[in-house]
């Protein structure tokens, strides 16, 4: 399934409300929680790390531009150099 957002010169914007349901779980950007397990390569000589990931509860997310930001996520401060450029 293709994502429901479009790219414009000003950035990425969602075409549809960001109301998530299970059958669209993999269609929209969302936060992942990472887990890691450290072991050894098959020859037992070198460090090997397995990274696994969990998708956070999609109902924690809501509509809006910004690539699927969590509502709890503070927006980053603007870059003053780009503000001067009218960005």
């Amino acid at each position: 399934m293709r994502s429901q957002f479009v790219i414009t010169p000003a950035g990425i914007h969602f075409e549809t409300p960001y109301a998530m349901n299970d059958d669209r779980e993999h269609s929209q950007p969302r936060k992942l929680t990472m887990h890691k397990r450290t072991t050894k390569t098959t020859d037992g000589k070198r460090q090997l790390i397995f990274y696994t990931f969990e998708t956070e509860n999609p109902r924690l997310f809501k509509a809006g531009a910004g690539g699927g930001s969590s509502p709890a996520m503070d927006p980053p401060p603007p870059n003053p150099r780009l503000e001067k450029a009218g960005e």
Partner: protein
Amino acid sequence: MSELRWNPLLGEWLATATERQERTFLPPADYCPLCPTKPGAFETEVPEPTYDVVVFENKFPSLRRDPPTPAVEASDLYPVRPAQGVCEVVLYSPDHDATLAGLPARQYLKLILAWTDRYKALSALDFVKYIFIFENKGKEIGVTLSHPHGQIYAYPFVPPVIQRELNQSLRHHEATGECLLCDIMQREIEDGRRIIFQTDHFVAYLPFFARWPYEVHILPKRHLQSFLDFNEAEQIDLALAMKQLLVAYDAVFHKSMPYMMNIHQAPVDGMPYDYYHFHIEFYPPLRQADKLKYLAGSETGAGVFINDTLAEEKAAELRNLVKPAEW
């Protein structure tokens, strides 16, 4: 044998790594050391039947945590030091035939999280001064294993290309009080001709000073020094931006585009680098579908790149190929 030899003529270190002559070279898929180990089949580097993202220490490293004693003695003219560092391999997917361009954007986010973790972990090693995350992709680049993967080199010094960027950035900051790459990004946005696309938090452009026909730089709009500075929205947005660029690359010649991907972050040597700006540089070596841009006499012997194309024209070509990223 491996060691670091000082080049007094250029003022930079060279790593020797003679064991790498023996490394696996383009094995058949059934004997790929980067695939998962299937029951009853060839034992690969990964001792489990599948994985998502894996990072392990390179079997044929040019830098080691516990390096051997150098094979030659140092002198006042020729300093020599052990090749201490870490070389890691990052596996993007268990699918041997996948490419990063073909993976969904959510897999890029997983890589960004793993890269961030490795940057943090390796920076804690006292002998590590710079962490270089990169990918050599395609036989045109000289890869020895086609399985989708990247690498991480944790150097015991700041590499010369990064040092030149730092020097230029510091000089600009001292002269203007501004960040050099913030100013370049602002100039590119104002001009617009070399912009490939923008997302909420990133800008992708083909630089005014591009050395390769399809060279593209991706920069965060916020003034960040490393992955450690990213918030969640920026991590997700970078995943989308990278995916968009690599899909556009594959559309240029209707085939999988070879490239070098180089992630430039601040050193981890304890010095302040507030004046520096995180960015990713992509260098595809093709100038036409079947023609490589070679690094010949001028580029290699004199350090002067000759680009056979105009950045403005190639940017327009790439811009027209950008499509929404698939998550």
